[in-house]
C-alpha cells in the first residue's frame, strides 16, 4: 500500500516546504490587541499613522504579600485589630499600615508597605495582607499606517494597508521603524562595520550575504533601528543578544536594534528578489518586526513598506497554489546545497535512497550552471516569481 501511495503524478506534487512571502504589493492587515480588556480609541474607517495609539488600558499592578501576623507577632485572626488602614485604602512605600503596641509602649511591632499602592486583602487565616501596586498604563500603537477596518470592542483594532511585504526566516527584537538604506552593492556582499555610518542612525540597513559581529556592534553604536541581511553566524547572534537562544521564540530581546535574516545561519546570499525589492523602496519608511516563533502558529519576522504604487497581488501565486512541477524555481534549504537556487527537472514518484541510506521522496533539480542534483523534497522550498 505504501507503493500505491507513491504512485502519484510525477508532474506535480504538494509535498514541499512553503516558501517565505516576498511580495511587491499586497494588502497587509495587522491585529493590534491589548493584553487585557481596555479602551479602543479608534473607529472603523479612521486613518492612522504607525505611532498613533489605537487602544489603551491599565494592567493591575503587582501584588505584594506581607506576613502581617508574623511581623506583628500576633495570631492571624488578631491582625484586623492592629490595622491602621482599611481594605482599599491607598498606602505609600514604607508607610506603616498596621501597628502593635504592648508592654506600656515598650514593644512596638510595625508593619510597613513595601510599595506604593493600596490594601487589597487581609486574611484572618494566614495572617497575610496583600498590597497591590498602582496600575501600569499600556498603550498599543498602530504599528503600520493605514485604515482601521475592524474593531474588537474592548480589545483592539485591525489596521489595513497596501504594502510591499517580505518575510524573513529568523529575527530578534520587536517592532521598529525606519527609512530603508541599502548598504552593500550586491546581495552577495558581506555587511561589515565599514558599511555602517552615522548617516544610518534611525534607519533600516540592508546588507547582502552576512552581517558580521562587528557590523552589528557598530549598527548598535550608530543608533541604527534595524538590520536586514541574508545570514548571520550563531556566534555573532550570541554576541548581539548576550546569550544563547534556546528555543526559536524571539521578539522580546532587550535590544535597541531589530535584526532580521532572510535566508538562515552562516554566510548565505540574501535572495535577489528580496534585495531588489528592498532596493526599489530605498529611502521609504519601513515597519519591521524581528519576532519569530517556529513552533505552533509559525510567526516569521517581517518587513512592511506601505505604498500605493502597485495594485495588491492575490494571496498566493500560481506556483504556490499548484505545488511543485518541472520548471518551478526553488531554493535548497539544507546542506550540501544550502541556499542554492535551482529549477525542478523531475519529481520521481518512487522513494529514493539518499547518501544517508534513508529512503525518501526526492526532486531532481538543475542549478544555474547546468549541473543537476537529486535532493529530498523536504529540503527545498519554492521561490515565488
Amino acid at each position, binding site marked *: *500500500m505504501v507503493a*500505491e501511495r507513491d504512485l502519484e503524478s510525477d508532474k506535480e506534487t504538494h509535498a514541499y516546504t512553503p516558501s517565505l512571502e516576498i511580495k511587491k504589493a499586497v494588502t497587509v492587515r495587522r491585529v493590534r490587541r491589548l493584553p487585557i480588556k481596555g479602551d479602543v480609541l479608534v473607529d472603523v474607517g479612521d486613518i492612522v499613522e504607525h505611532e498613533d495609539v489605537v487602544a489603551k488600558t491599565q494592567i493591575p499592578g503587582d501584588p505584594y504579600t506581607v506576613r502581617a501576623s508574623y511581623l506583628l507577632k500576633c495570631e492571624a485572626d488578631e491582625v484586623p485589630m492592629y490595622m491602621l488602614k482599611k481594605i482599599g485604602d491607598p498606602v505609600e512605600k514604607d508607610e506603616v499600615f498596621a501597628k502593635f503596641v504592648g508592654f506600656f509602649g515598650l514593644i512596638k511591632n510595625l508593619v510597613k508597605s513595601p510599595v506604593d499602592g493600596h490594601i487589597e*486583602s487581609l486574611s484572618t487565616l494566614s495572617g497575610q495582607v496583600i498590597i497591590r501596586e498602582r496600575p501600569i498604563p499600556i498603550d498599543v500603537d498602530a504599528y503600520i499606517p493605514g485604515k482601521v477596518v475592524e474593531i474588537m470592542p474592548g480589545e483592539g483594532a485591525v489596521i489595513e494597508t497596501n504594502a510591499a511585504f517580505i518575510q524573513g526566516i*529568523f529575527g530578534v527584537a520587536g517592532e521598529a521603524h525606519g527609512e530603508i538604506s541599502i548598504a552593500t552593492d550586491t546581495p552577495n556582499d558581506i555587511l561589515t562595520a565599514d558599511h555602517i555610518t552615522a548617516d544610518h542612525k534611525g534607519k533600516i540597513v540592508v546588507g547582502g550575504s552576512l552581517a558580521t559581529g562587528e557590523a552589528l556592534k557598530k549598527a548598535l553604536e550608530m543608533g541604527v533601528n534595524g538590520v536586514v541581511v541574508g545570514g548571520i553566524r550563531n556566534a555573532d547572534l550570541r554576541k548581539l543578544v548576550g546569550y544563547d537562544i*534556546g528555543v526559536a521564540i524571539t521578539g522580546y530581546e532587550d535590544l535597541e536594534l531589530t535584526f532580521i535574516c532572510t535566508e538562515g545561519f552562516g554566510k548565505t546570499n540574501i535572495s535577489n528578489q528580496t534585495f531588489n525589492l528592498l532596493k526599489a523602496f530605498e529611502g521609504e519608511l519601513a515597519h519591521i518586526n524581528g519576532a519569530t516563533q*517556529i513552533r505552533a502558529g509559525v510567526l516569521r519576522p517581517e518587513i512592511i513598506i506601505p505604498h500605493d504604487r502597485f495594485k495588491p497581488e492575490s494571496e498566493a501565486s500560481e506556483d504556490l497554489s499548484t505545488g511543485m512541477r518541472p520548471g518551478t524555481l526553488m531554493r535548497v534549504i539544507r546542506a550540501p546545497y544550502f541556499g542554492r537556487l535551482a529549477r525542478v527537472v523531475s519529481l520521481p514518484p518512487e522513494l529514493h535512497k539518499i547518501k544517508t541510506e*534513508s529512503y*525518501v521522496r526526492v526532486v531532481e533539480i538543475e542549478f544555474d550552471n547546468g549541473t543537476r542534483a537529486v535532493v*529530498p523534497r523536504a529540503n527545498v522550498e519554492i521561490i515565488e516569481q
Partner: protein
Amino acid sequence: MIKKNPSDDIGLILITDVGSTTTKARLFQKLEEGWRYIVSGEAPTTVESPYEDVTMGVYNAVREVEEMTGLKLLNRQTGGIIVPKQVGDGVDLYCTTSSAGGGLQMMCLGLVKEITAESANRAALGAGAIVMDTIALDDGRADYEKIKRIRGLRPDMVLMAGGTDGGARGLVLEIAELLKASDPTPRLGVDYSLPLVYAGNKELRPHIQDLFETQFALTMVENIRSVLDVENSEPARRAIHELFMEHVMSHAPGYTKLMKWTGIDIMPTPAGEGLAIQLIADRYKANALGVGLGGATTNVYSVVDGRFVRSVSANLGMSYSICNVLKEAGLDNILRWIPMEEDRDGCEDRLRNKMIRPTTIPHTLEELLIEHSVAREALRLGLAHHKTLATRLKGVSRATSVDERFEQLGKSLQETYIDLMKIQVIAGTGGLLSHAPRRTQSLLILTDAFQPEGVTKIVQDSVFMMPHLGLLSTIYPDIAWQIFDKDCLVRLGTVIAPSGELDEGKEALNIKLEMPDGKTIEKSVDFGEILRIPLADRKEAKTTIQVHRGLAIDVDEARTLETTLTGGEVGVVIDTRGRPLKLPEEEKKRRDKLLTWFKALDLYPEEAYEEAAL
C-alpha cells in the same frame, strides 16, 4: 474508562493523533491471524490560522487512509467518521489523542518544594501535561518573584496541593492567597474560566472554596499527600483528564466538533504514550524505561516496581528545540560523539538552520552523524531530568536500621530509584529513532544516552503508533497488545553491559550462547569493546555470562549470570565500554575509539568512515 472484552464484535478501528504539526491516522483491522496495523494517513494539523479547525487535518489524514485502502470512512454529508461500521463503510471505533496547539500546559503549586509541590508536579506530568512551573513556599524565590512568574505564565489549568489532611493550614492558605492575588491569565483567552484542581489538606476545602469559586473553575479532589508517606495522585490525574476535555479541548479550534466524532474521550498524546510504556512493562512483566524523542519535547517514562512516572523536557527536541539541546548540553558534548573533525561555528550554524527549518532532513552522512549526536545528548538530558522526578518520596523517614542510617549519611535523600541495572526494557519512539536508516543506529543512540546496565531488551516504535495504541489499551487492552506485538514494537535486540570499570584491554567478560540452530558461540571480550552477535527477532539463546572482578552484571552484583537472551533486528550487543561510559579525553584517541565502535557494529556506510579519515 471501561475495559471491553476483545471478543466484542468489532473488526476495524481508526485512531488519530492530532500532533502539533502533523495529524497521524492509523487503521487497524481484525484479520484471520488477529489484529493488525493496516495503513497510515498523514496530513498537516489545522489548529492554527487560517484553518483553526482541527477536524480539517483529521479529515485529510483519514482521506489518505481512504485513498490507500479504497474504504469509505468519512461521512461526507454530516461530517465526521462513519461509526459504527455499516455495510462496507466506516469503522467500529474511532478515537484520538491530541497535542496540538502546545498540548495541555499546567502550573503546579504546593507547600514544600520537595514534598507536596513535587507530588503535584508528578501528577500533572503523569496526566500528560507540560508543567510550565511549580511554585512552592520554599522554592527559593521571593513572593514578588513568584507572583511575577504566575502572572507571566498563561496556563490552561492549575493544580494546587499542600499540607497533609489535618496538617498545615496557614501556610497552605498563604500560597493560595498568592495564587488568588496573582490572578493568572489563561492562554485560551479572557473568557476562559481557568480550571483549578485543589488536591491539598481537605480541612481547608471551605476556605479554598471561598477564595477561588468566583475566580476559577474549581474542582476539589482527594489530597495528593493525605499522609506524608503516601502519594495518591490518581484522583488529581483523573480530574485533570476530565477538565482537559471539559475546558481545554472545548476551547481549542474545532475540538467541540472532534469530540462529537470520537467514541471515547480525547487524550493528551503523552498520556497515550505513557499508557503504551505501561502496557509494555505489564506484558513483559519488567521494569521499563520509555522515551518519546520528538521535534519539540522529550518525554521519558519509567515503570519501576509498578510505579509509573513521566517527565517531559519541554524544550529538548530534534527540530524546533534542537538549539536548546545545544544550549543545555553544550557544543563539546555534542561534538564528542562525532568521529571526525568538525568546524565548531559551522556545526552551530547547521543546528540553527535545522531549528528554523525543522522539517528538513539530513542529506549527508555528516549531517546524519550530527543529528544522531544531538539525539544522544537530548536523551541523556531527558533521563537526567527524569531522575530528578523519579525519586523516593521525600519528607518520609526511610531508614529502618542503624546500618541504613549510616549509609544515608553520605547520600542525598533525593536520590532517584531509577537504577539502570533494574531496568529490563528500554523503548524508544519519535521520528529520529523510527527513521534511523540502520536499526543499529537507534540501538546505539539509546545505549549511549541511557547507558543500560546488565541485560536489557531494546525496542522501538515502528511508525509512531504508541500513543494510538496506548489510548486503545484503555478499552481493548488485548487488541492493543496484539497490534503492539506484531506491528508496533520493533525488537532491536538485547544489550549486555556490565557496570563498573577496568583498565583498557583487560579481559572483561566471557559469554557462552546456545544459539537456536544448535551451535554454541563462546567469546571473551576485553574492556572497552562493543560487538554484535546476530540473533534474529523472536529467537532465543540460553546464555551464560561471566564478568571479571570489578564488574557486575546484575542487581546482586553477581559475576555470573545465566539467562535467556532474546534477539531482534540487531541481535545481541555486548558492550564492555564500562559504566559510566567515558570517552577518551584526548581528541585523536576519542575519534579512533568512536570509529572502532562504529565499525564493530557496522553503524554507518563506509563513506562515513572515509570522511572521518580525511
